[in-house]
């Protein structure tokens, strides 16, 4: 196989990589938002429950979760498709990380913002939706972009549940070609081409949000 053929071969896995990423976002975004906000708003036992759910998805090893959800759940009568399992496990894992960013963003806001909202007679939900969340989400957007990159890279695990993504395509090709140098270099490049523009976009957003930062720092 020529380098070009290897390239095209790896690209055949791009669709799955992209789909898992997109569907993963369908899980990650609502989970991150809802649980981040919930952790911010709740106290006591409710907060413990919210935190436990977040920690389960965030701290467990993804490989093991994929395995359990795809191969063990059907024995309990719940057979989700490979795409669903991948999107859910990877999405909720990243969503767990995102929820922490959402919570931190909300907590980092100046208390005065909430108080000013109260003083104007705004309801708690209006304060959250119109004042706190917009500011927190903007402030945290570079973090979210980094987490998107993590999600793209994490899709390389989905071959465990029979999906043929870019990494798995590279493995398939190497099972035929036995020539690691061009294959893995191509794979490295493939991820780079997908993720680097996203990383650059993240840098750009970071600069836009805090233009003074570079000039202001102490060293």
């Amino acid at each position: 196989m020529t380098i070009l053929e290897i390239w095209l071969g790896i690209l055949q896995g791009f669709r799955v990589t992209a789909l898992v990423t997109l569907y993963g976002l369908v899980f990650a975004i609502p989970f991150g938002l809802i649980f981040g906000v919930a952790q911010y708003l709740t106290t006591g036992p409710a907060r413990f429950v919210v935190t436990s759910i977040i920690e389960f998805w965030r701290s467990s090893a993804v490989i093991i979760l994929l395995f359990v959800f795809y191969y063990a759940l059907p024995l309990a009568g719940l057979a989700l498709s490979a795409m669903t399992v991948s999107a859910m496990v990877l999405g909720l894992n990243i969503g767990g990380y995102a929820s922490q960013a959402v919570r931190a963003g909300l907590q980092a806001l100046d208390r005065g913002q909430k108080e000013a909202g109260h003083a104007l007679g705004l309801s708690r939900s209006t304060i959250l939706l119109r004042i706190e969340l917009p500011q927190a989400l903007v402030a945290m957007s570079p973090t979210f972009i980094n987490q998107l990159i993590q999600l793209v890279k994490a899709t390389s695990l989905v071959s465990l549940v029979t999906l043929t993504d870019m990494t798995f395509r590279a493995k398939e090709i190497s099972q035929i070609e036995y020539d690691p140098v061009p294959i893995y270099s191509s794979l490295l490049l493939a991820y780079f081409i997908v993720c680097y523009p996203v990383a650059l976009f993240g840098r750009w957003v970071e600069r836009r949000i805090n233009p003074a930062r570079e000039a202001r720092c102490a060293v």
Partner: protein
Amino acid sequence: ETTKERILREGKIVIGIHNRTPWGFRDEATGEAKGWHPDLLRAAFAELGVKEIDIRVTEFGALIPGLLAGRFDAVASGLSITPERCRQVAFGAPDLKVHDAAIVLTGNPKQIHGFDDIVSKKIIMGAGRGSVSVRNATIAGVPESNMLLFPDIEANISALRSGRIDVTVLSSPTVIGLLASGKLKGLESATPFVTTDEQATYAAVAFRSEDQDLRALWDERLLALTKDGTVTKVMARYGFGETEVVPDTVTVEKLCGTAGAGK
């Protein structure tokens, strides 16, 4: 409706493979399943009106869990029969005899011709994690410290090429398939690589334990294919010869030991 009835009604069977020549792999050109077990399955079921073979490609370690979870109807990827596996799945009749074989650098510079050489010359050996070859090597006295266990065959080949190991011990059909592919420039099989009959294992198609009717159907068809020479043809297609033929005395019951086959 049993799995067998469903397969016959739909005219479609779903098999799990781990994408390995020559056992079961997806053809790069057509996207269809090829390999020893898929070819046999296709031949066996075609006459029954089952024209479509749907494949699920996954990691080797996920084959049996995937079968048990109902993700596919059969594992057709060169699984060897072992007593432990018999407790989980129902194997069809053994269809191929498998020995250990070895791949070395061209010219076999360290003159490796069996596990004895590996032990006595303190050679670093590579093998697939969890493979039968590892067990055979351990029984033959290869110390753990001299074995590097990789998750897949490519890693073994890469390790051999990059000089991290001197030899990789794999199953003979794998080695035959690899060499036939013509991609192993600079490598060759160690000939001869001495093995004993106790070290041999036998490959078979695996079904779920509750699908005994499907297994019976498969055994029946496999016997017919053996008789009409189809099996020999498929063996020739992948370069298998006399040494890979299963002796008549070997049965699933024997291979599964006291635990019994597919109960």
